[in-house]
């Protein structure tokens, strides 16, 4: 079966010389709910940026459902939806326009697009806020707009970079339910998060990245058969165990 995402020896060096991703290889099977964990600066967002076209990989290859994300970028982009960590929108545009424009860029005809936008605006409880400028929305509402925008093209691979950062518990739970529904319906999901609970609850496969390399990768069950579960495995894989133990001892 063609993997939903296949990253092979990805390396990304910024013009400043900073090596953001040293050597990342991973495979996500279609229909998987894949958790991508790692400390700040580990290379999670850069990897996602290379997958979605925001960054150019320095070397390595990325294939999305078998389509090369660099050589055949137009076809590859059609398959992906991205909810980035930072709000990358026109802050003066309305919530509805932000979602609608993205549908337009994906070439969705007006009638079908309006229906889809209406559904997403309703699904994320944005109806009373749809005409408000993005900058006037609260943090949680902004996050909902970004999520609705990521889903407007009905992507086969949904990439969520810290989607629940700064949102209230209610929305987080609601979003979890929605993501599980989407995943059940066949959407492959790549999720990065700092909330271990979120990864534990949602993901079937987990990879831990540290210093630009994958240091652990496997089915969720593997992490839970170890003493201390995912938290212990995460701290151990990212080399934080000693510091953590010292803090606890104090």
């Amino acid at each position: 079966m063609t993997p939903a995402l296949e990253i092979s020896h990805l390396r990304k060096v910024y013009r400043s010389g900073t090596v953001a991703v040293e050597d990342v290889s991973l495979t996500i099977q279609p229909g998987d709910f894949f958790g991508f964990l790692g400390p700040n600066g580990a290379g999670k967002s850069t990897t996602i940026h290379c997958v979605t076209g925001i960054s150019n990989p320095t070397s390595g290859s990325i294939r999305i459902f078998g389509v090369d994300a660099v050589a055949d970028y137009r076809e590859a982009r059609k398959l992906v939806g991205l909810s980035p960590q930072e709000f990358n929108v026109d802050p003066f545009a309305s919530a509805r326009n932000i979602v609608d424009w993205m549908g337009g860029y994906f070439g969705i005809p007006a009638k079908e697009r309006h229906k889809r936008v209406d559904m997403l605006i309703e699904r994320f409880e944005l109806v009373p806020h749809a005409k408000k400028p993005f900058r006037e929305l609260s943090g949680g509402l902004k996050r909902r707009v970004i999520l609705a925008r990521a889903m407007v093209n009905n992507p086969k691979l949904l990439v969520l970079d810290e989607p629940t950062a700064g949102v209230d518990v209610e929305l987080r739970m609601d979003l979890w339910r929605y993501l599980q529904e989407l995943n059940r319906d066949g959407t492959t999901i790549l999720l990065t998060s700092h909330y271990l609970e979120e990864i534990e609850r949602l993901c079937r496969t987990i990879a831990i990245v540290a210093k630009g390399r994958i240091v652990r990768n496997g089915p969720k069950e593997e992490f839970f058969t170890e003493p201390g579960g995912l938290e212990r495995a995460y701290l151990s894989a990212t080399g934080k165990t000693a510091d953590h133990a010292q803090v606890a001892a104090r």
Partner: protein
Amino acid sequence: MTVNWIGLWTMVRREIQRLWRVPIQAVVAPLISALLFIFIFGFVVGGRIASIGGYRYLEFVLPGVVMMNVVSASFLQATSQIYFQRFQKSIEEILVSPLSYVEMIGGAVSIVILRSVVTALGILVIGTIFGAVHMHSLPEFLFWVIMVSMIFGFLGIIVALWAKTFEQLNVLMVFFIQPLSMVGGVFNTVGMLPPWLRWLAYGNPLFYFINGLRHAMIGFSEGPMAFGAIFTVALAAVLGAIVWRLYAIGWGLRE
């Protein structure tokens, strides 16, 4: 590969909505500036200047005023559009979409042309009030407005991709484009310049643009029209190819 017309139209309507938020800056300011140029240089000063090639001075000046505003509108549109999208990171919405590089550039330049044409038509309306508008050849008029818009649209995109600060957006405009416009024959014929200064006109690309538009409007030309047209098309093609290459490698667009 089919063209993503819906994506292209989305880029255009999105930018129209942005411009709608700043109508004074986008539409009213160039028209007021043109009105003042027409009034002072054409009407007040022009009343004391003999006709040029059988045309009143105001009729001679008007094509130059239109061209100056086309140049300025297209450059400002391209720089503000691309630089603001980079600054807000909303350019990432386009980068993650299935638009080709040609479509991304085509969408940006379409808006540049639209704004320039609207500005040019607005000035023609003002010129009509002063009884100074002639149209020797409409296709020629459209050729010059569209080609020059493309050239300064491409230049504006290059500057917007290069700029790290708002200040840098103005460098090319202040130090090159505006001075070259002024000495490119907006207010005077080449014959009015002393012979030792005429190279300033003939060596200046803006001269060929202004001369071309003047020919389109009043049928008066001081330079080789065919050379001017070929040079203009070639310049647009070269700049377009450079912009395409910059998009393809992600210069100023992708980290």
